[in-house]
Every structure is written in C-alpha cells, then in structure tokens.
C-alpha cells in the first residue's frame, strides 16, 4: 500500500497545498467549479486560526489579498472565470505594487455566464494581463491533482521571490477530479521569507516608513518602474520556463497542450504511437513565461505542431509567436465546456500527417 497518498479533489489539494505553503490569509467568493476550495479553506484556515474571509465579492477578495500581502502575509484568492474577470483591476494593482500573491482560476466555459463545465478560454486573460497596463504574472497550469498541489505550493515561493503574483490556471476538470496526491511538507510560518517592503511593525523593526502603492504620476518615473519590472520578467523568462515533453525527439507532429487538454493529447499520442504515427507532446507548465525558446528550437527541427485547447484558439498564438513561421502550426479546439476526446485529437493529428 503506497504511503501518504491521499485521494483528493484538485480543488482540495490546491487548498491544502496552499495551507502547507504558509498561506496566512485566504479571501474568496463562491463560484462553481471551485467551491470545494473555498469550503476547504473555511474549515482548515479557521482550524489553524488563520484568516479566512468569504468576501462580499471577487472584487473585494482580490483587494483584501492586496492588503494582506502588503501587510506581509502569504495571501491567496481563488475563483472561476467570471469571478476572475472581476479581479482584473485588482490584479493589475498587485502587479503595479510589486506584491506577491497567489490567484487560482478553476476555469469554466464562457463568455458571460456561459457554462460551468471546464474551459481553457481564459488563456489570454491570464497570460496577457486581462487588466490594464503593461504587466505579466506567473501562470502555472497543472495537469493533475498532484501537480495542482505542487504548483500551488511552489507558487507562493516564486511569487515571494520575484514580487510578482502567481496564478494557478486549472480548468474545472482539474479542480473537480480526484486523484492520489502526496502532499508537500508544511512550512513553518516563522521561517517564510521576510518582506522588508511590507507595512507593519515599523517602530519594532526600526526601519524607515514603507508605502505600498502602484501610483506614480511622473511619466518618466513610472516608466522606470515598469522597465525595472520588465527586467525581472526577462530574468524569469531565462530561468523559470517549465514544460514537459513526451516522445518529442522523433516526432513528426508535436501536440502542444496544457492542463486537461494535455491529458487528452497524451491519450491521443499513445493511440497514435500504437498506430505507428510519430506524434509527440509538448506540455507547457508555465504558460507565462511561455516556453517559446524550446518551441522555436523544435520548430527548427522540421516538426509540425498541433495546438490542442479547450478554447477557440488562444495558446496557439503563443505557439505561432514562438515558431515564427518556421513550421506549420495547426489548431484543434473544443469550447463551451466540451472536452475533446482522444479520438478527435488523433483524427486531427492524422489529418495533418495525411495518414
């Protein structure tokens, strides 16, 4: 019997991993399909006498995160697509104020109220700043309950280290499904990285006063602060890109997919290989920073690409930008909460390969 494996929903695993990562303050508002996350936090954050608030709205929740993060606490909010749209102004503020925070989007299908079935149509919003202004933040896309826990745990560290929020972009399937998960070790709150820029205990720390803000009405100064942030982005792009490759080396056609689509694509790959088709899978784990260099490299090797998404085609633009005309990039997508099947993806692959 495997030890320490727990059977959990993705939503619960994310919550538990956040607690273990030292999340001291959680603020959420109910929305399907992430409700188990908020409910788990309610119980377990209260049990530990940490801050849990069911905010009056998603707008409030993200701004509570802003305050708690400014006060030095590892803070988190979670929601699903429409709720994440409401958080865009707040996310832009958090980025503008260089605060760490973790934001979870268990995405459903839009636009508008849309449906509550899984979707991947929030890719643009997540990776290109659905909010206003020049900014980016980490976007991590788990493919399994285990990875959902691991990436959430890590998101807090990444975010703290770089003073950039990290978003976990999981679709409703990742949030709702149960799998075995080995949870990471619990972090001691007292040993978490310090935030010298945070407010609070000014006299005790004997430091000059701190001000957390995103405002600067002097254009040249504001530009300088944006450029400084983009220098951090550049470093992150150098060092923190993450992806997973499956049988890519000899592949004629590389499927590019993340999250649930990557799981389906892996199934399609397995079928394809059985049929003797040289299909590989490239799975971006960091959607921002997107693994553009590696894709460009692969494109140089004469492969073709098929982006598979639960959307009308969003990540495929990043694939195209990375490949930059060096290889054909095709797209197969379903939307509205429809999850593509392995057969469909295989058929799309066959069509491209002409076999």
């Amino acid at each position: 019997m495997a030890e320490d494996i727990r059977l959990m929903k993705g939503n619960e695993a994310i919550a538990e991993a956040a607690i273990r990562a030292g999340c001291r303050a959680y603020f959420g508002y109910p929305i399907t399909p992430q409700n188990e996350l908020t409910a788990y936090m309610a119980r377990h954050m209260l049990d530990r006498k940490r801050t849990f608030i069911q905010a009056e709205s998603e707008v409030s929740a993200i701004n509570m995160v802003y305050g708690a993060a400014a006060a030095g606490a590892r803070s988190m909010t979670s929601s699903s697509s429409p709720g994440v749209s409401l958080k865009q102004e707040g996310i832009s503020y958090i980025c503008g104020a260089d605060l760490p925070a973790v934001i979870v989007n268990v995405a459903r299908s839009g636009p508008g109220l849309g449906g509550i079935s899984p979707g991947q149509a929030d890719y643009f919003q997540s990776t290109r700043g659905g909010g206003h202004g020049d900014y980016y933040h980490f976007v991590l896309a788990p493919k399994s309950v285990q990875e959902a826990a691991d990436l959430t745990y890590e998101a807090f560290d990444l975010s703290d280290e770089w003073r950039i929020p990290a978003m976990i972009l999981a679709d409703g399937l990742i949030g709702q499904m149960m799998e075995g998960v080995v949870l990471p070790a619990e972090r001691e709150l007292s040993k978490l990285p310090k935030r010298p820029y945070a407010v609070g205990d000014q006299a005790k720390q004997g430091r000059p006063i701190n001000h957390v803000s995103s405002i600067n009405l002097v254009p040249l100064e504001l530009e300088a602060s944006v450029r400084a942030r983009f220098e951090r982005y550049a470093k992150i792009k150098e060092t923190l890109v993450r992806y997973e490759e499956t049988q890519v080396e000899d592949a004629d056609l590389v499927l590019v997919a993340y999250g649930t689509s990557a799981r389906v694509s892996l199934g399609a790959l397995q079928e394809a290989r059985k049929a003797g088709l040289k299909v590989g899978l490239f799975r971006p784990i960091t959607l921002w920073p997107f693994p553009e260099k590696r894709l460009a490299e692969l494109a140089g090797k004469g492969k073709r690409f098929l982006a598979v998404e639960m959307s009308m085609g969003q990540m495929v633009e990043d694939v195209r930008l990375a490949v930059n005309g060096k290889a054909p990039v095709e797209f197969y997508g379903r939307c509205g909460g429809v999850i593509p099947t392995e057969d469909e993806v295989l058929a799309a692959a066959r069509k491209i390969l002409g076999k």
Partner: protein
Amino acid sequence: MTEKTFIAGFGGQGVISLGQLWVYLGMKEGLKVTFFPFYGAEKRGGIARASVIVSTDEIASPLVTKPDSAVVMNMDSLPICEDIVKEGGYLLVNSSLVKVEPKRKDLKVVKVPCNELAEKIGDVKIANMVMMGALAKVTGAIKMDKLEPVLKTFFPESKHKYIPSNLAAVKAGMDAV
C-alpha cells in the same frame, strides 16, 4: 492494466461514492487512479455520472469516453452507457431497476440485482457496494483483498459501524457474477 469505467445512475443511488471508493481502493492497491464526476447545476435529483480509471500506468485523459466497462444503475442510464462502451466491453446492469435488454450484441452484459441483494443485507442504500463487488470481480482491475482495513481509512470513525454491511454487500456482488 488500465480499466476505464463509466458509472451512471440517478442522484441518491451512490454513484459518486461508488466511483470514489473504487479509485480509493485502486490507489491503496498501488494503482494510478482518476475519478471525475459530472457536475450539473441542479442540486437534488437528476443524473449522476462519473468517469473512473484505475491503471498500472500513468493515466492520460481522465475523461472516459470509450469505457472498458460501464455501470448502469438505472433505466435512464442504459442508452448512454450502451452507446459508449468499447467493442466487446463489459456492461454491468443493475437488473433490479433495469428491465430492458441492451441492444448491442458485442458487449459482455452482466446483470446484478443490486437493490434486491442490498435489501437482503438490510439496506437498499448499499446497492452501489453490491455493484462494486461485481465490477471488481468481472474486470479483475481491483483485488479487494484488503477491503476491510481500507474501508476503515476511507470512512470517518463515526461511520465504521456501516463497514460490516458494506463488506457483505461487496461480497454479495462478487458472488453474484
């Protein structure tokens, strides 16, 4: 070994817990597992469905669209299950409620009078456990050799009193096929 199962019934028949326990057992036997419920917006009643996979290998898609086995807990669920089971797959039917014959002839149809067997043990609510026994037996995907200790970790202390009847139900299901 990979066993992909699709389970369907109506709300209240224990479809979700059958699926969850199935994968929990699989996990405890060292298998990779996934469980994915269909979640609708209705609160009570309505359809209940789950995709469950247990496997010795890493599991690709958690969505079961061409199941090796399908569990039909009520009448309404027969058409959808019959539609998707793979060529020659298992169709486990709760014959207590499903009175018609499947149309497809290639399937291995296994009839289990779950409700009756459960009622015999004393609780119609454990009809799902009867079905689980049958599913384990016909697919061989899960051994169920350490069922009792595993149930103790699955159920909270307060529900341990139900373990004997659950065990009996599973056994009844295994014996019935």
